[in-house]
């Protein structure tokens, strides 16, 4: 099912190779480093650019076709959060607080995984649906809210919960993705054309630099992996695959193209490591951050980048 050239096309792409270079550099204790300001600049650029792309797509779509996918996405975000929570409680045996914290990450979404999936998918199947970006925005928040709610039932401080929710809704990720979406939709394809050379043409190149940086960050996280236990490690692979295959099926049921369904699968599969950690750290400070950071950035992200995405593409091809 998972053809070799799909794997090769993915593993030999500059994006994945740059990630590997980052991991190698950190393992060799190289003094290579990406300045923090450059990291922020690239995040900002990538999120805004995704927003713009999605906004242009939305401006060309009829709004009536958006509601069903949007609602389905929110429902899927809630379902995957709860499923991850159950697995973490029953199978991994985490405490309530830790399980809630981790599940918030696995119900939410990683924008970079989305981008990498979109890239490979576009090369294999042609451009996927543009409205997927709108779904990306919709998938980000619900899981975090559910996770915070699950965790704070067993903890003090509901006030803290509202503070955290406020922070997620006005946080950078939402501002850039959501704001970019609005700008793209309001300006429309023609007016956006003058910013195309920066935001669209350079996108893949910036992604390569960003993944070099993420590779270094992921390798640092991996040092904590000994602490977490094999059941937890198994979780970080098995649950994403489950979510991913479920997502591909759901995407196909929604009538997406095979490429779109594969990207939708990768979205459900991915775990947030930008918006969720900050929100969970503020809202559930008792939870152990090593757990969710190691899992989302150190294990699930590399897994999806290298193997997960080709798998979801293969599943999408098989289902179509």
């Amino acid at each position, binding site marked *: 099912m998972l053809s070799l050239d799909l794997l090769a096309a993915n593993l030999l792409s500059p994006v994945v190779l740059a990630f590997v270079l980052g991991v190698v550099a950190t393992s060799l204790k190289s003094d290579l480093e990406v300045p*923090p300001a450059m990291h*922020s600049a690239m995040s900002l650029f990538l999120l805004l650019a995704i927003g713009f792309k999605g906004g242009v797509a939305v401006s060309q779509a009829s709004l009536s076709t958006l509601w069903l996918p949007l609602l389905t996405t929110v429902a899927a975000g809630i379902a995957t959060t709860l499923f991850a929570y159950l697995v973490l409680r029953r199978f991994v045996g985490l405490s309530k607080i830790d399980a809630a914290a981790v599940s918030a990450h696995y119900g939410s979404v990683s924008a970079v995984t989305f981008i990498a999936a979109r890239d490979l998918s576009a090369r294999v199947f042609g451009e996927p649906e543009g409205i997927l970006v709108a779904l990306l925005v919709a998938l980000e928040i619900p899981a975090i809210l559910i996770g915070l709610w699950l965790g704070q039932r067993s903890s003090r401080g509901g006030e803290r919960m509202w503070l955290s929710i406020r922070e997620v809704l006005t946080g*950078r990720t939402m501002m850039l993705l959501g704001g970019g979406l609005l700008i793209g939709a309001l300006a429309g394809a023609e007016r956006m054309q003058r910013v195309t050379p920066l935001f669209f043409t350079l996108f893949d190149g910036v992604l390569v630099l960003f993944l070099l940086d993420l590779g270094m960050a992921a390798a640092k996280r991996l040092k904590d992996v000994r602490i977490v236990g094999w059941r937890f490690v198994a979780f970080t692979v098995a649950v994403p695959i489950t979510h991913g295959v479920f997502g591909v099926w759901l995407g196909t049921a929604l009538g997406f193209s095979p490429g779109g369904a594969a990207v939708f699968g990768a979205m459900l599969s991915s775990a947030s*490591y930008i918006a969720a*950690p*900050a929100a969970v750290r503020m809202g559930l*400070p008792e939870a152990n951050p090593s757990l969710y950071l190691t899992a989302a950035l150190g294990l699930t992200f590399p897994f999806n980048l290298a193997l997960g995405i080709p798998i979801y593409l293969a599943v999408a091809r098989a289902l179509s």
Partner: protein
Amino acid sequence: MSDSGLAWQQVRLLTIVAERLLRDRILRHLDQMSVSGYTVIDSEGRGSRGVMVDEWQGDNVEIQILASIEVVDRIAEKMRERYFEHYSIILFAQNVDVLRGDKYKRP
């Protein structure tokens, strides 16, 4: 205090080192605590927790506050109560000499 003609006066300098995520909250506390000002410096660090959740903005911040003993104690108390248990945060205090000492001594 030096022997010169300058009117050095003693006040207290409190230094807080905390994970970046707490930055805005701590500054909001300070704004509410009749502090005459503060200085914020980006920093990195290692400690007993060593958590850095905010890949975006880098590691820690160091916040320096000149104030009277009482105000410094009140701030330290607040930090202990709110953040010591679960967050990466340390603080230390010392006496320093300033000119225009009244500036830092709002009650």
